[in-house]
C-alpha cells in the first residue's frame, strides 16, 4: 500500500521535464492566488478573462517570427498583455467609458487580431490548442527561469505596496485625500495581473486562466474576512490545486490545465458545501432550542 502511494507520488518526479512542470505549476498557483485576491475583491473577473485572451496577438506574432519556437512566446504575450492592460486603464481613467465596455472593446479587438494572425500560419491547429488550453509539459528550463523571476517580481511588489493596493481597492477617495498616486497604483495592479496571466499561460492556457485567478481566491474569501490571510489561503489553495491537478493529470491521462482548474473548482465546492451545511445545522439547532423553550 505504502509502496503504491510512494510510486504514485514519486514516479512523475523521475523525469526532469515533469519536475520542472510541477515546479512551474506550483509557482503559477501561488501568484494566481495572490493576484486573484485583488481580482476577486475588486470585481475584476471579466478583466482577468479578457486580458488572458488579449495576449493572443503577441503570442501569434512571436510564433510567426520564430517559426514555432515556444521559448520566445512569453515576451510576445508580455508585451501584448501590458499593452492591453494599460490600454484599458487609459480608456477608463476619466470614467467616460465604463470599465466593462472598455474591456470588451480591447479584449474582442485583440483576440480577433490574434486569431486572424494565427489563421495565416500553416498547420496552426495543434499549437493553437496549446495556447488556448496550456501545455505544461512544454516548460523548458528557460521558461521556468522566466516564470520564477517574474513571479518573484510580482510577489515583491505586492508585499511592498500591500497597504497602498488595499486602500485604492477599498476606498479610492481616501487614497486621493491621502495624496497617494492612485492612478499609478491602479495601473501597476493591472500590469501585475497581466504579468501573472502571461506567466501562467503555459500551465492552463488562455481559456482557463480566469479560473486560476478567481476560484482559489473566491474559496479563500469564504474562509477569511481579512485581505492578507485571504491572500495567503488563496496562494495555498492555488498551489494545492496545481499539485493535485498535476498528479491527476499524470495518472489519469487528462490534460493538466483542466485537471488543475477542476481541482480548484472541487475545493471551492467542498468549502462552500461545508459552510452551507454548518449554517444549516446552526439554524436547525437554534430553531429546536427555540421550540423547546416555548
Amino acid at each position, binding site marked *: 500500500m505504502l509502496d503504491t502511494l510512494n510510486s504514485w507520488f514519486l514516479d512523475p518526479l523521475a523525469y526532469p521535464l515533469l519536475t520542472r512542470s510541477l515546479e512551474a505549476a506550483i509557482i503559477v498557483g501561488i501568484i494566481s492566488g495572490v493576484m486573484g485576491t485583488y481580482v476577486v*475583491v475588486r470585481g475584476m473577473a471579466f478583466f482577468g478573462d479578457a486580458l488572458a485572451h488579449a495576449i493572443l496577438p503577441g503570442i501569434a506574432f512571436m510564433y510567426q517570427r520564430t517559426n514555432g519556437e515556444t521559448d520566445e512566446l512569453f515576451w510576445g504575450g508580455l508585451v501584448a498583455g501590458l499593452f492591453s492592460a494599460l490600454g484599458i486603464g487609459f480608456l477608463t481613467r476619466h470614467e467616460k467609458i465604463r470599465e466593462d465596455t472598455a474591456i470588451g472593446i480591447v479584449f474582442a479587438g485583440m483576440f480577433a487580431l490574434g486569431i486572424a494572425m494565427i489563421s495565416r500560419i500553416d498547420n496552426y491547429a495543434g499549437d493553437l490548442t496549446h495556447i488556448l488550453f496550456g501545455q505544461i509539459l512544454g516548460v523548458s528550463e528557460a521558461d521556468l527561469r522566466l516564470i520564477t523571476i517574474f513571479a518573484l517580481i510580482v510577489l515583491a511588489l505586492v508585499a511592498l505596496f500591500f497597504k497602498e493596493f*488595499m486602500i485604492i481597492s*477599498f476606498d479610492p477617495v*481616501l487614497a486621493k485625500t491621502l495624496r497617494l498616486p492612485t492612478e499609478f497604483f491602479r495601473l501597476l495592479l493591472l500590469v501585475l495581473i497581466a504579468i501573472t496571466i502571461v506567466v501562467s499561460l503555459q500551465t492552463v492556457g488562455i481559456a482557463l486562466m480566469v479560473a486560476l485567478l478567481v476560484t482559489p481566491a473566491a474559496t479563500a474569501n469564504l474562509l477569511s*474576512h*481579512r*485581505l492578507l490571510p485571504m491572500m495567503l489561503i488563496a496562494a495555498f489553495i492555488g498551489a494545492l490545486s496545481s499539485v493535485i491537478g498535476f498528479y491527476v493529470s499524470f495518472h489519469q491521462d487528462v490534460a493538466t490545465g483542466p485537471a488543475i482548474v477542476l481541482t480548484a473548482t472541487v475545493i471551492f465546492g467542498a468549502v462552500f458545501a461545508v459552510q452551507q451545511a454548518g449554517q444549516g445545522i446552526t439554524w436547525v439547532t437554534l430553531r429546536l432550542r427555540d421550540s423547546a423553550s416555548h
Partner: protein
Amino acid sequence: MANILSAILTKNNHDAAREFATDCASLSESVMTVHDLACGYNGYRAIEGITFDLRAGERVGIVGPNGAGKSTLFKALVGLLPHQGAISIQGASCKDSHAMIGYVPQREAIDQTFPVTVWDVVMMGRARQIGYILLPRKQDRIAVRGALERVGMWPLRKRQIGELSGGQRRRVFVARALAQQASVLLLDEPFSGVDAAAETDIFQVLDVLREEGVAVLLATHNLVQAATHYDKLLLLTNGRMIAFGAPRDIYTPQNLGATFGDRIALFQEGDQYVLVPDKPCHHEDDH
C-alpha cells in the same frame, strides 16, 4: 396638520448654538477657509461663489434641497474635482492640505463585502504617517486603538466592516479620521438610512470630535435637525450659496424661500419657530 415637515425649534437651542459658535470663534483660529470656490463638470459650473470658514470644534451643516450641489462641494473640498477659488486648511494651500481632511463616505460608496476589519479600516487613516512600503509602528497602533476607544468601537475591532450596522460603520470612519489626525471631517448625508438610536450614537461621536477640536462639515437636507444640532449652517441651492451663519441669523423667510422655493414657510410664535410646508400635501382622508 398631517404632513408638517418637522418639529419646533426653541429659541433657547438657537441661543446655545450661537453662544457656542461665538465661544469657538473667540477661542480658536479658522482651521479651514474657503474663498469664492467654483467647480463643475464638462464646462457646466455645478457650484460657484462659495465662501465660508470653519473653526476648531465647530459643527457646520450644508443644507439644501436635492441637487443643490452638496456632494459636488464635498468632492471639491476632498480634492476629487478640479476647482477654482481658494481652499486652505490651517494656512496650507489645498494641494498640501487634503490629507488633513477626513471624510465619512455614504453607505453605497463602500463595498460592504470587502475583506477588511474595523481595525484595518482605521489603520488605513495612518497610511501617510506610516509611509510607503513600511509597516505600522507602535505609535500607529496606539493611535488606532485610541481612535477606536474614543468612538466606542474597540470591542468590535475584529469585525468585518460589512458585519456592522449603519451607525457603527459611520463611527468606524469617524475613528479613521481621528487616527488620520484630520483637522476637518466631512460627512455626506450621515443620517440617511440609520434609525433614531444610531442617529443619537452619531451625535455622541460628533461630540467627541468637538472635544478633539475637529471641525465637522455635514451635508444634510434635514432642516430642523440642522437648526437644532449645528453651530452654523450654509444654505445652498442650485450650486449657489444663499447664506452662511448661525441658524437663528440665517433662518429667515427670505433665505429659506431662496433655498427651498415656496415649499417651506417659517412661523414665529413667541419664543418658538415652527417650520411647515407652505403647500402641505393632503391625504385622502383629509377630503
